[in-house]
């Protein structure tokens, strides 16, 4: 059967979750190569979303809906994909640090990563340092994301990074941090790999990071 990749891309940009799931299932059942479906249908759809977003033709909730569609399609595809097929889009552990109850910025970032094909494990707000380390040990994420909205809780991020080092797993993942008071300088200071000023740029920066570091 001929799969209409353009249609699949369009379902992504329009955020039509159920129809996209249907089409994805159908494509797999009829023997479409999962990697081809990903590269010719889903990812171009998300690229288009990124483009529309940058041009100001799409708004946050629309982008998030597309991201959700992408993530649902990825849930179907993931078991059929090899690590190589996935490129950098792997697993992410994400949470807000201890003592901090700010939620929404972290969630936005998580949804954007889902949109890029990541499997995102959102461990929630007010998470003690050990929760990050334990989740990292258990789930072996490619990316660990931390959010802090308070200057008083920002130091927790550095502590988590130190604990990751002590556990000997620091180099197995990229650490990305964010939140309104967080800066690039702070990220450098505590030894985070990445800082993103907003959810939109976070994914872009992460992609660039992996492109540079894996080559």
């Amino acid at each position, binding site marked *: 059967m001929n799969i209409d990749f353009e249609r699949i891309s369009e379902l992504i940009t329009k955020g039509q979750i159920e129809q996209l799931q249907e089409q994805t299932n159908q494509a797999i059942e009829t023997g479409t190569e999962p990697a081809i479906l990903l590269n010719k249908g889903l990812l171009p759809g998300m690229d288009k979303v990124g483009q529309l977003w940058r041009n*100001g033709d799409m*708004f*946050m*909730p629309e982008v998030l809906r597309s991201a959700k569609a992408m993530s649902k399609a990825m849930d179907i595809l993931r078991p059929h994909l090899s690590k190589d097929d996935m490129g950098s889009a792997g697993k992410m552990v994400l949470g807000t640090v201890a*003592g901090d*109850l700010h*939620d*929404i*910025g972290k969630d*936005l970032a998580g949804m954007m990563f889902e949109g890029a094909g990541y499997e995102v494990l959102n461990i929630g707000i007010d998470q003690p340092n050990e929760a990050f380390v334990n989740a990292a040990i258990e789930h072996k994420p490619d990316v660990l994301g931390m959010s802090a909205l308070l*200057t*008083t809780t920002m*130091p927790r991020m550095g502590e988590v990074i130190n604990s990751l080092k002590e556990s000997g797993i620091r180099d197995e993942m990229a650490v990305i941090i964010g939140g*309104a*008071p967080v800066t690039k300088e702070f990220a450098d200071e505590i030894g985070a790999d990445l800082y993103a000023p*907003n*959810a*939109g740029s976070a994914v872009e920066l992460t992609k660039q990071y992996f492109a540079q570091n894996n080559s």
Partner: protein
Amino acid sequence: MQISVMPKTNLTMSTRTNYSIQQTPHFQILSDNQKERIYNGMLRTLQYTGANVHHEGARELFKKAGCKVDGIKVFFPSEVITNALATVPPVTEVFPWNGDESKKITIEKDRSYFGPGPTPPNFIDPDTLERRPYIRKDASTVARVCDALPNMGYVQSLGSISDVSNGLADVYEFADMVRNTTTPIMSWSFTRNGCRDIHRMAIAMAGGEEEFRHRPNYIFYGEPISPLVSDFHAIDKCMYCAENRIPQVYSPCAIGGGTVPATHAGQLVVALSESMVGVIASQLISPGTSVIIGGVQSILDMRNSIYSYGAPELSLLSAAHTEVVHYCGLPMYSQSGCTDTKKMDIQSAMEAALSINAAMMSGANFVHDNGYTESGMTGDIFQAVMADELIGMARIIEAGIEVNEETLAVDVIKNVGSGGHYLYEDHTMKWFRKHWQPTLMDRNSYESWQEKGQKTMKDRIIEKTRNLIDNYEGPNNEVPENADQEIEKILQEAEVRIKNDPES
């Protein structure tokens, strides 16, 4: 250099509105029916959706009062809510610690007080005009400058201190501010311990616990979390305030389209419900203790993902919220004078002017965030000084027009007749001083403006602000010595507390 400070008067601080000779021109956004529906939306939400309360003691309290408790979720039957509303006091007074009656706050339906806002991480440095972290000395600067500004009816710090022990920004802030202003402060804290330290300082300033009960001298500010969560510390601090009869604000920062529905009516239902949890707790613990609700109401900017402090929706939501909160019989904590810009510019003035006027016309009781820039990330004393002027202008509009025989002046009109002028009239002598006089707005002729250095509004704001910072002493030397010592002692003890337990 001598500097003259305009005294806070009843007109500048607050206007007793709606008295018979004068109609206050407040606007109305919602019809009675709409208010009722939003109110009922809150009742439905608290009864059937419930709110999470991360505090066992509070849940016990609610359960005893007849609420259904399921795990951390509490469902509030409407009679629990209406009973709580019935005991909120219609009027509470807050007294400046030096007894200055002109700065007394009356928490009451028809009075409004404007002030700065709490806790942004950054501050615009008064010397360099650059953004930098907020430091300890900024707290006393803000307190002193606001002490001198005639339209700042209460004070908040415009920052959270970064250069003291982690976890003590709240306590140091109060210690320094209270000694630099007699205008009542709205304080905040991380935990109950911080509350206690601040309260002890306030008691020291009041001259004893009994004195504080009679003459409370500050208001406390705490926040539940949208959607529908009261975290442990938020409700714990609320309970502490109720136990100690500290007037308090319990209100969320609701983000339209993010943490609450994108529809304004839906936002108000959620925000009202969250605040109501604090109202109920406070009244169950201590019926008749003062509580104010409202909070930051604005939208998530869906292009830049920032919480917009300059959006027109902020003013619309806050005005409508004011009406619903008044419908509940409670005082309203609103906001204005804030902006999304990063530097003092035309946008900061535009957004401040619009929101200040809207807040004034809405009849809100406490209006915070005058001096917030960069969407709440940076406090700016220059913005507060500019806001002070705008509040003064808006007050004139809100004061309305007095209409009676004297003001109709029909006899004077007859006297002057056709042609001629009113400049020599006794009537003019008597009344012209009621016209508002600017302190920042330029009304010079072109020539005198040139002569005086061709200053722009920005130049004048900077000049006025720096002049106050450099020359206005504030009440620091009036602080009773024993109170001063007590405050230092409390700070030392707080250091020990936080050293022993950084989370305390």
